[in-house]
């Protein structure tokens, strides 16, 4: 019985499915889902409306910004969400960027940039996937990769990028692939 429980226990890298959690805990115990919920809560950090940050923002967890940030934001392997109240005047580097507020600056994502309804981006986007909702504002350029190409492959193959920024996603995607 003990050995069987050990076998279905989730590893730290893979979140437990509800079925797996149920098999290791009594059916009515909330303890089965609490650690996971706590972990998610802990891994999403929120910068509130009244917070103003000037400078460089680095992190290794998902981040939601509702305040003002000026400078540079780098969350290479994580998701950055600019909330509806968020105002960013910065160069942004992340795995995925979701924009519901305002961004003034270039955005580089190794996976996806998603500008939602009401979101606004003034700047250049470099990302293999870009979604721009109907009510979103966007002014700038979008640099994507061809369908079927390996992430980072095309950029790395390009010996003469148009401008220095173009070299950035190649580096970040190569690092992401290495993890």
């Amino acid at each position, binding site marked *: 019985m003990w050995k069987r429980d050990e076998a279905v226990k989730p590893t730290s890298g893979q979140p437990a499915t509800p079925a797996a959690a149920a098999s290791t805990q009594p059916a009515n115990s909330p303890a089965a889902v609490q650690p996971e919920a706590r972990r998610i809560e802990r891994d999403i950090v929120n910068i509130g409306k009244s917070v103003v940050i000037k400078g460089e923002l680095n992190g290794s967890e998902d981040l939601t910004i509702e305040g003002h940030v000026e400078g540079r934001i780098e969350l290479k392997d994580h998701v950055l969400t600019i909330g509806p109240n968020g105002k960013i005047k910065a160069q942004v580097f992340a795995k995925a960027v979701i924009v519901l507020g305002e961004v003034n600056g270039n955005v580089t994502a190794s996976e996806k940039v998603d*500008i939602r309804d009401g979101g606004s981006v003034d700047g250049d986007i470099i990302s293999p*996937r*870009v*979604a*721009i*909702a*109907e009510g*979103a*504002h*966007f*002014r*700038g*350029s*979008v*640099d*994507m*990769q*061809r*369908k079927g*190409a390996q992430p980072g492959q*095309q950029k790395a193959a*390009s010996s003469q990028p*148009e401008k220095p920024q173009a070299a950035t996603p190649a580096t970040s995607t190569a690092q992401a692939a290495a993890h």
Partner: protein
Amino acid sequence: MHPTKVLARFIAGLSARSQPVLLDLGPVVGTNVSFFGEELGCKIIVEDLSKDIDRHVRDGIFDQFPAFLSKRFAQEPGSIDGILCWDLFDYVDKPSAKALGEQLTRLLRADGVLLAFFSTAEPTPGLKPEYTRHVVVDKNNLQHRAYAAARGTQRPLPNRDIQRVFEPLRIVEQFLLKNNRREVLLKKAPEAAGTASVAPSA
């Protein structure tokens, strides 16, 4: 759903290039950005000229629009592989069309392609002015979504004027569709063999 004949040829004209640069003169359409990005692996620059037209009309300075266009584009000459004009030329007068044509011709790289739609019907008086947002469904079909405009469509440009507006570009494909629309694909002549390309800023 509206069929298009020229879009597939526009894409074909760019597909051999590595990371082409596309200039879209229409409003931002997310699905279009995804479509062209995935099809061509390109860089897309969105310069929504309808907003500029509206601003000039609202401020009562549309006569200054040709002069404005001559300074509108910050891109280097010969830096763009493909230009999507959609039906923008239906909304401008001849001097503006000429000024815009000159700028786009300057921006287009040798062997680059330009797509434009022209109405063949006279504008209907009394209609509320509307732009058309062209949403790419696939290579052969577009969806039209109307949105408010400050200026209505103008008298259609005859074929001769279209050629003059874009000189020295060459019309390589032209289709007259049943919906009173002329679809045109223009191309800039390739560089002569042995001619070295010179970086504009060098």
